[in-house]
């Protein structure tokens, strides 16, 4: 890639952090609910197992 591209006409220190923040927000928005969902399903499975154990 052309080195001028990374320099962004002298504004690299503003442009690249903006894109890095954008990608970080996108990643956070998808990964956090996914991790929460997995943890939730595990917890619900354990709770339901316990309830079934009490019932038998």
């Amino acid at each position, binding site marked *: 890639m052309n080195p001028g591209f990374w320099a962004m*006409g002298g504004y690299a220190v503003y442009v690249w952090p*903006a894109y890095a923040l*954008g990608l970080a927000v*996108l990643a956070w*928005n*998808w990964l956090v609910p*996914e991790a929460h969902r997995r943890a939730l*399903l595990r917890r*619900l499975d354990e709770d339901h197992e316990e309830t079934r154990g009490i019932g038998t």
Partner: protein
Amino acid sequence: MWLWFHRLASPPSFYRFAGILAPWLLAIGLTAIAAGFYGGLVLAPADYQQGDAFRIIYVHVPAAWLSLLGYSAMAVAAFVALVWRIKLAEAVVVASAPAGASFTALALATGMLWGKPMWGAYWVWDARLTSELVLLFLYLGVVALNSAFSDPRAGARACALLALVGAVNVPIVHYSVVWWNSLHQGATVFKPGGPSISPGMLWPLLTAAFGFTMFYAAVVLRRMQNELLIRERNSLWVRELVPVVAA
């Protein structure tokens, strides 16, 4: 048609529907964002006044657009939740707030990064910036209020009320650059007489904004699925679903 909507409004049907739709929206959203960023960073010409600093627009504007769209959708859902007490509408309110808050924070942060080289300051107490900051506080208020309640339905109704009251800030954010003297530039895309931005700069912007919107929809659907699992944890459909999905 109404029967289809009625079926979709039931939590188990919606959970399955969201599970199918969310990955597609995610894939479409990420593809459009990648295309928009490539177009914005590589293909679009530099601005004649702002140089390459203007390329921050491809993150800043989609995030700012989502901050307003997300709050508007949340306020409509809040109205539906308060009037008709529909569980899915309550889930939309609770699921939208964290995502909306993150995109509002992104709009503010990227605006600061753009403001420094253009205005000489990261922050000014300008009408647009201040009203956007108030929007962030409203989103955070909804998130905090929801976590303060142990009963999810009571929490969702309180959040809906706050979201509805806060909706008054949405037109203030949008029209702040018209109503007051502002350092922030006015509308460049949706304005009478058409966009005042070159087509070579416009298409990556619209593509990125479309991608962000699809991505946001996918995230809200995923968060709504989580909300439904919590609220319906003792119902039969969750008891049948959990061992299959958790395995």
